[in-house]
């Protein structure tokens, strides 16, 4: 098991190094995308700041709490993009049949297409984002237990994000027509930039249980604010594991539908 894990870490590092080299070779494109990502963050952050300057609270949450929800969304969103960027390049691989080459290798095909192209642009933005999250998190004066719950639920959030990306990959195999399922996922999760409490029913229930954006993003932030108990965390993890299970089943089903077209 440990040997297998070491092998996969080594392969991930090799694939990531190759992916980084490709992007670093295009310095101008790297700069443009990096500036774009930073500006997008700054614009929404600025909007929230000025909005809360006028309203003081949002759905009962203070300014610092709302900003912390937004930062937690970014932590999960940016790290997921950093790890799972290869998902965005999967559809062409299916259309021209290059996925055959992945299947023929002595390597888990899902691992290759899920984590085979880490994104250096997102990696650059992660340290300042973590620093900001720690700063705004400290303003909430959390207890040690709250921080622990936050980290545990953050991990659960990454599990759900991974499951979503696996579902997107599976969709790409099953239905060739859809080329932006991943963007639908991004739009859905972007509804978690703010606490799901702002949405009316049944949208709130939809975002909490059916597409668990709330469990993925809102719950970790709530845990940091001391609003979560052990039972809530166990339930969140149960849903997280269930979503991963469904995603893996769907992936296995999708593989049986792969027709190796154009290869």
């Amino acid at each position, binding site marked *: 098991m440990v040997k297998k894990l070491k092998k996969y870490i080594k392969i991930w590092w090799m694939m990531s190094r190759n992916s980084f080299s490709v992007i670093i070779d*295009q310095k*101008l*494109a790297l700069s*443009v*995308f990096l*500036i*774009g990502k930073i*500006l*997008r963050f700054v*614009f*929404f952050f*600025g*909007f929230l700041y*000025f*909005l809360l300057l*006028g*309203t003081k609270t*949002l*759905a009962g949450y203070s300014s610092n709490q709302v900003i912390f929800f937004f930062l937690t969304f970014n932590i999960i969103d940016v790290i997921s993009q950093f790890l799972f960027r290869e998902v965005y390049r999967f559809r062409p691989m299916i259309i021209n049949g290059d996925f055959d080459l992945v299947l023929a290798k002595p390597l888990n095909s899902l691992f290759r297409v899920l984590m085979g192209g880490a994104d250096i642009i997102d990696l650059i933005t992660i340290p300042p984002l973590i620093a900001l999250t720690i700063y705004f998190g400290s303003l909430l004066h959390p207890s040690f237990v709250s921080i622990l719950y936050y980290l545990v639920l953050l991990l659960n959030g990454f599990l759900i994000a991974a499951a979503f990306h696996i579902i997107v990959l599976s969709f790409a195999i099953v*239905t060739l*027509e*859809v*080329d*932006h*399922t991943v*963007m*639908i996922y991004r*739009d*859905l999760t*972007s*509804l978690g*930039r*703010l606490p799901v409490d*702002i*949405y*009316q029913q049944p*949208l709130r229930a939809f975002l909490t249980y059916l597409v668990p954006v709330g469990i993925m993003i809102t719950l970790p932030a709530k845990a940091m604010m001391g609003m979560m108990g052990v039972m809530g965390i166990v339930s969140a993890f149960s849903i997280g594991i269930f979503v991963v299970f469904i995603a893996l089943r769907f992936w296995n089903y999708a593989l049986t539908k792969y027709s190796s077209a154009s290869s």
Partner: protein
Amino acid sequence: MKKYWGIFRISFQQEFAYRLNFILWRVRNVFQILLTYFLWSTVFAGPGTQIFGYDRAKILTYIFGIMIVRALVFSSRAMDVSRDIAQGDLSNYLLKPLSYLKYWFTRDVSSKVLNLIFAAVEFIVLFLILKPPFFFQGNAVALFAFTASIILAIMIYFFILFLISSIPFWTPEIGWGSHFLVTVVIIEALSGALFPINILPQGLQSLIMATPFPYLIYFPVEVYLGNIHGSALMGGLMVALAWTGVLWFGLNFIWQKGLKVYQAIGR
């Protein structure tokens, strides 16, 4: 004129080639509207709340207005121009007896018509589900000014897209990157599609109002709401007209320069 009508019809039919894709694209628009709608609905949840000069009816009309104005202004095919330049496909069009600019403008109009139809349906469905208070503008002058501001917004957006799409003449590798930076990030934030510009401090507002971006969404919707009138309305329309002119001349200048360095790489 007949050939552009032909382009319009073919382009319209092309949009239906990938129906599921198109529908999912519209679904994405609905998600964006939902975030903005519920955010502002929560802010104005208390009865009689007045913030940033808006009441609940006006802010929710602003959000619903965005749906229609977005479909009219932001629906476009002209971002494909950068790919034509980067891959050398521009040569095919330069040899044909048509204006490349008019060709893409016609395709844009076709995209706008289709998106407007879908946006109208989404508007009705969401309106029936959410039942927001709505501000109906009955003043003929405001409605006329709103129409004029929409026409100017369409022109400004088209020229900006074409200018951005011209970048691959010099640096083909940042075709999508420059669109991401300008259309996805800057225009999305500064046009008023996410929030009304007047929630920002006065200095920042003045700075943004001096750029062409707020004349794409914020200005037309504010004109509809009747929040901009009299000399401010005339001044705003003049600034939008001036930007249309500046961008038109800028585009002609850049496009001519670009054609001189165009090497049809990839053909």
